C-alpha cells in the first residue's frame, strides 16, 4: 500500500482522472450525438459542441431554489465526480501492468468499485431530493427504483469472472481487478465462453441503464417530467452532472473490457472500446423509453435469472 500512490504515478493518475477522462468523455458525448444525428439522417453538431455546452454552463448563473437545502444541493454533483474519478483511478492502476504483479492492488477491488459506481445514482437521488421540486422527487424515486433494478444483474454478471478465477486460483486474487486481468492474460478473456457472453450482455444493458440512455432514461425523461432529477439544476452543478455522465461513458465500457474482455493491455482495447460505445449508441437510437415497472421487470425477471444461469455455468466451468 505504501507504493500505491507515490511520486510520478500520483501525478499521472491525477492528470488522468481529472483531465483525460472528462475530456475523453466529452468527445465520446460528441460521438454519441453525431452518430445519433446520422441515424436520424441529420448533420449533427460540430465536435466542440459538448465543450461549448460545458463552458457555457460553467460561466452561467447558478440558481438555488427557494427552500432547498443549499449545501446538499450544491455538494451532491461533486460526489458523483469524485466517485467516477476514483473508479478511473482503480481501473488505471489495475490495468497498467503494475498490478498484474498483484502488489499495488488491494483486496476488495471489485466491491469497492461497486460502491463507487453507486455514488453516481446516489448523487442524483440526493441532489434531486434536496431541490424541493416535486418533479425532481418523481425522478429521484425512479432513479432509486432503476438502481435497485440493475444492481442485482450487474453483481451477478460480475460474479462470473470472480467464480472462474476463484476456482482456479484463490478468492483473494479473484476479488482484485488486477487478478482478473492477470488471469485473462494467462488463460484468455472470459468473454469467449458461454457464461462470459451472458455476463457481457447483462453488463451492456446495465451500462445503458447507468448512463441513463434511452430505453432506461426513465429518471430524467425530458419530455415527460422535464429532465426529472436535473430539473432544478442550472449552471455549474448541471455541468458537473454532465461531466459525471461523460466520465461514466468512458469508464463503464472500460470496466466491461477490464473484467470480461482481456483488460486494457494492448491496442485492440481501443477497437473493443469503440465497438461497445457504438453498440450503446445504437441501442439508444433504436429503442423507445420503457416504463419504470417494465424496466424493473426486465432487470429482475429476465436479466437476473440469466445472470444466475451464467454464474451456474461458470461454476460448471463453461
Amino acid at each position, binding site marked *: 500500500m505504501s507504493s500505491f500512490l507515490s511520486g510520478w504515478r500520483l501525478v499521472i493518475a491525477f492528470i488522468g482522472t481529472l483531465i483525460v477522462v472528462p475530456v475523453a468523455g466529452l468527445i465520446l458525448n460528441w460521438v454519441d*450525438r453525431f452518430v445519433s*444525428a446520422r441515424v*436520424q*439522417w*441529420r*448533420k*449533427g*453538431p*460540430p465536435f*466542440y*459542441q459538448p465543450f*461549448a*455546452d460545458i*463552458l*457555457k*454552463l460553467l*460561466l*452561467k*448563473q*447558478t*440558481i438555488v431554489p427557494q427552500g432547498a437545502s443549499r449545501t446538499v444541493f450544491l455538494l451532491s454533483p461533486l460526489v458523483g465526480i469524485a466517485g467516477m474519478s476514483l473508479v478511473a483511478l482503480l481501473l488505471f492502476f489495475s490495468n497498467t501492468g503494475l498490478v498484474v504483479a498483484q502488489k499495488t492492488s488491494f483486496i476488495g477491488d471489485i466491491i469497492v468499485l461497486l460502491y463507487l459506481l453507486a455514488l453516481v445514482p446516489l448523487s442524483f437521488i440526493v441532489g434531486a431530493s434536496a431541490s424541493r421540486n416535486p418533479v425532481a422527487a418523481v425522478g429521484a424515486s425512479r432513479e432509486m427504483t432503476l438502481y435497485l433494478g440493475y444492481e442485482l444483474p450487474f453483481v451477478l454478471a460480475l460474479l462470473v469472472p470472480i467464480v472462474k478465477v476463484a476456482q482456479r486460483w484463490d478468492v483473494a486474487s479473484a476479488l482484485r481487478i488486477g487478478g482478473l486481468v492477470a488471469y485473462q492474460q494467462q488463460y484468455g478473456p472470459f468473454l469467449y465462453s458461454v457464461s462470459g457472453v451472458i455476463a457481457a450482455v447483462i453488463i451492456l444493458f446495465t451500462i445503458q441503464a447507468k448512463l441513463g440512455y434511452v430505453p432506461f432514461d426513465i429518471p430524467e425523461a*425530458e*419530455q415527460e*417530467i*422535464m*429532465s426529472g432529477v*436535473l*430539473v*432544478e*439544476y*442550472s*449552471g455549474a452543478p*448541471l455541468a458537473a452532472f454532465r461531466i459525471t455522465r461523460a466520465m461514466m461513458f468512458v469508464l463503464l465500457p472500460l470496466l466491461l473490457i477490464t473484467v470480461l474482455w482481456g483488460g486494457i493491455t494492448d491496442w485492440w482495447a481501443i477497437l473493443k472500446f469503440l465497438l461497445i460505445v457504438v453498440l450503446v449508441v445504437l441501442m439508444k437510437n433504436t429503442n423507445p423509453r420503457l416504463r419504470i415497472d417494465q424496466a424493473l421487470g426486465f432487470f429482475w425477471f429476465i436479466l437476473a435469472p440469466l445472470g444466475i444461469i451464467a454464474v451456474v455455468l461458470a461454476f460448471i466451468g463453461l
Partner: protein
Amino acid sequence: MKDLRLWGLKKSPWVYHVAAASCNNCDIEILELLTPRYDVERFGVVLVGSPRHADALLVTGVINRKSLPRVLEVYEQTPKPCLVIAIGTCACNCHIFRNSYNAVGPYDKHIPVHAYIPGCPPKPEAMIMGVVKALSKL
C-alpha cells in the same frame, strides 16, 4: 474570460419553449426546426425540458391575463444571461387580438425581448435568422 463566455453562449444556445396561449401553429413550426430538414442541432441548439437549463426562451402566442404571470415566473426561473425571442405576430404585437379585453399587450411591455420574429406562423428560416441575429447582438 468574457470572450470565452460569449463563445460558449453563442455556440450552445439551449432553448426552452414557452407556449403562452398560442394557437399551436408557431409551436409546430418551432418543432420543425429540430427535424432533419432544418436540424438546428448542428448549431448547438437543443430543446430542453426545464427553464433552469435554458439560454433562450422562445415565447409564442398572444399574452393574456392568465398567461402573463406564468411567463414572468418562467422568465425569473431562467438563469441569466438569457435571451427572449418572441415568435409569431401574436407575440410581437398581439395580431388580431390587439384590442381584446383579455390581451395585456405585446411581450416587450413586460419582459425585455431580444428578437421579434413576425409571421403567422413565421417560416423556420426566419426563426433561424432571428436567433442568429439575436446571438450576434450579444
